[in-house]
């Protein structure tokens, strides 16, 4: 059979949800009888409305390839995963799976909390197709992987959520699955266990197939060979991870900045000499606060490296421009920015108070001034970062913020090499003397 070379073969897959008046209407619909006309006039109308949450999905995933699925909330990612696993029944189309599929949709969700860890291991492993003797052989390995000590003989309801996840993942890792489906589950668990899982996954995907749903573009980029971008229940783009994630990033920028795409056209004209420049402008100046003394009218972030598209890798020279307008006469303004990571931790920041440019400077009412910061972007670890900008007056002891813009720019950093901690080091050389 030619389809054998594919781990997953999806044809014309669609899922329609029908909203029924009552569970009984649904039952009638399922068994194919409708007796409503006997009882009342409302024979038609047991189905109130239908929603296609997924439509026209066609996928071919070869053995050994790994599929990432991205898309905004509600785009149908989880529905697709459930259809791939078989917990949901498709309305149209087929899913062919060549191999045993193990899902980590919600880690530990197949657990019965009244049962002990040991009983849950036996039950979960049997659900995943192991015979009792096979489980007996692997039991000690599973327990060793889970590493939760004597808790294994306690009811699962006494477990912390981390322990449930450890046991669940340990089972998944020992059932000889051919396809592993993971839904944002990797972020949980402590660092040591996460490392153990990642080691397992990297080994696993050498020969077998992983399907991963994540909002974390960098983990998709590091784990998946192909990526599917879902938008409103349909395939927006499907192809190699690099091109799809880049297109997705473009889309996210446009969504974030709305009409800013118009602005970036004008600024691209200004920068016509540097084709393929990474640029982000913001008109999204509404989140934050203003005092009414002055305001930030525009801001842009431009990479000064040639031929850089979509992704920062850290270390490149960038220019952050902030234009302010005085609504009243303004004395000695201080313009600054901070770079925050996904958790809101401030990584770095700078302002004009350290420089001489605004010393004894007055900006008359209705006048504008643009400040350019040119700096080397820190060697950030892969992930999303936000830049907040502000205009203030006073001195650093007694600062009055006049206009603060949260997350004026969102940048995505994808480092080709692993960086430890918040920022990488700019290593000049590594020597050894013996």
């Amino acid at each position, binding site marked *: 059979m030619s389809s054998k070379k594919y781990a997953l073969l999806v044809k014309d897959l669609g899922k329609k949800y029908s909203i029924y008046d009552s569970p009984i209407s649904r*039952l009638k619909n*399922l068994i194919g009888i409708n007796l409503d006309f006997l009882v009342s006039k409302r024979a038609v109308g047991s189905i109130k409305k239908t929603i296609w949450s997924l439509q026209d999905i066609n996928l071919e995933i070869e053995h050994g390839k790994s599929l990432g699925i991205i898309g905004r909330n509600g785009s149908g990612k989880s529905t697709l995963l459930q259809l791939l696993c078989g*917990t*949901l029944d498709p309305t149209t189309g087929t899913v062919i799976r060549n191999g045993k599929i193990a899902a980590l949709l919600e880690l530990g969700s197949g657990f019965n909390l009244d049962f002990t860890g040991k009983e849950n291991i036996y039950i979960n492993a049997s*659900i995943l*197709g192991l015979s009792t003797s096979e489980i007996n052989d692997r039991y000690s390995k599973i327990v060793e992987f889970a590493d939760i000590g004597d808790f294994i003989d306690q009811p699962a309801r006494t477990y912390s959520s981390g322990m449930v996840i450890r046991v669940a993942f340990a089972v998944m890792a020992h059932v000889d699955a051919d396809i592993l489906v993971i839904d944002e589950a990797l972020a949980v668990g402590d660092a040591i266990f996460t490392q153990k899982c990642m080691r397992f996954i990297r080994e696993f995907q050498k020969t077998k197939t992983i399907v991963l749903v994540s909002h974390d573009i960098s983990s998709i980029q590091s784990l998946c060979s192909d990526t599917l971008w879902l938008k409103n229940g349909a395939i927006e783009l499907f192809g190699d991870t690099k091109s799809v994630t880049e297109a997705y990033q473009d889309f996210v920028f446009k969504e974030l900045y709305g009409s800013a795409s118009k602005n970036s056209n004008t600024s691209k004209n200004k920068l016509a000499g540097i084709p393929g420049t990474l640029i982000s402008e913001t008109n999204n100046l509404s989140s934050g606060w203003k005092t009414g003394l002055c305001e930030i009218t525009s801001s842009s972030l431009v990479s000064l490296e040639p031929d850089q598209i979509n992704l920062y890798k850290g270390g490149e020279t960038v220019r952050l421009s902030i234009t302010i307008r005085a609504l009243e006469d303004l004395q000695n303004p201080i313009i600054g920015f901070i770079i925050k990571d996904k958790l809101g931790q401030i990584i770095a920041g700078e302002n004009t108070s350290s420089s001489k440019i605004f010393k004894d400077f007055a900006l008359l009412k209705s006048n504008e001034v643009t400040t350019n910061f040119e700096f080397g972007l820190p060697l950030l670890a892969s992930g999303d970062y936000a830049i907040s900008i502000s205009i203030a007056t006073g001195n650093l002891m007694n600062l009055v913020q006049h206009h603060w813009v949260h997350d004026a720019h969102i940048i995505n950093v994808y480092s080709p090499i692993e960086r430890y901690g918040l920022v990488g080091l700019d290593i000049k050389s590594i020597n050894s003397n013996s």
Partner: protein
Amino acid sequence: MTNKYNNSNHKPQTNPIELIRSIYANRGLIVTLSKREISGRYKGSYFGILWSLLTPLIMLTIYTLVFSEIFKVKWNPIESAANEKKIQFALIIFSGMIIFNFFSEIISRSTSIIRLHTNYVKKVIFPLEILPIILICDAGFHALISFSILIIGIITTGTLEPLKILLLPLFLFPYVILCLGISFFISSIAVYIRDSGQAVSLLITALMFLSPIFYPLSAVPKKFNNLIALNPITYVIEKIRGDLFFNYSHDIYSLITYYLASILVLIVGFHFFQKTRLGFADVL
């Protein structure tokens, strides 16, 4: 088995062969979950599994007391009182109770079995069709203990040809098939209709008095005979008693009818279950 994972078609098979295949493929799971179900019931209690023995014994004592001491009922009014021992009366009632309890336990628990395992419906790929089978195994285990007590009781108080014990499975097998079929139907319909639990518990109480448990079928007025024969547990109670106590001769045609009817109920019940399970995830 070769096709186990390559299921391009999600629609559950509704034919009875699929049921047999599933029982075979999931035998390990059925054993694990049934064991757990049996031992889990009394887990943490002082007497533990002894309760499975104590409960029928105590019930037996109560029935003996109420019916032969207070009501002074005789099983067979024609026979002289001297021929009928109190203990035999109790054992006759006990045999009926075993059959009835098996039925009532399976049916009443069927109303909640899917709801109690929502995880298995929505979160993992679980062979839901084995849940009623686990109910059967659990109830069957307790029925077996009770039957052992019954047979020990009959042997110690009277005589029993060993051959007759061998006949028991002949009557019990179609009964198990019948209960499984009803269980498939009830467990599915209870997911959609929440009132099922109430209706079923009422029905079970009614059945307890409408079945020939506390009285012989011969005591029922002739005009109700057809009605009471429709009761699914009447036949098997009468046959078991006829076999163990009264040396009735067995009529092969009614037995064949009972087999055919039971198998039909199972086929229809399983078909209904498989047809309707697709909607479980949407309702739960």
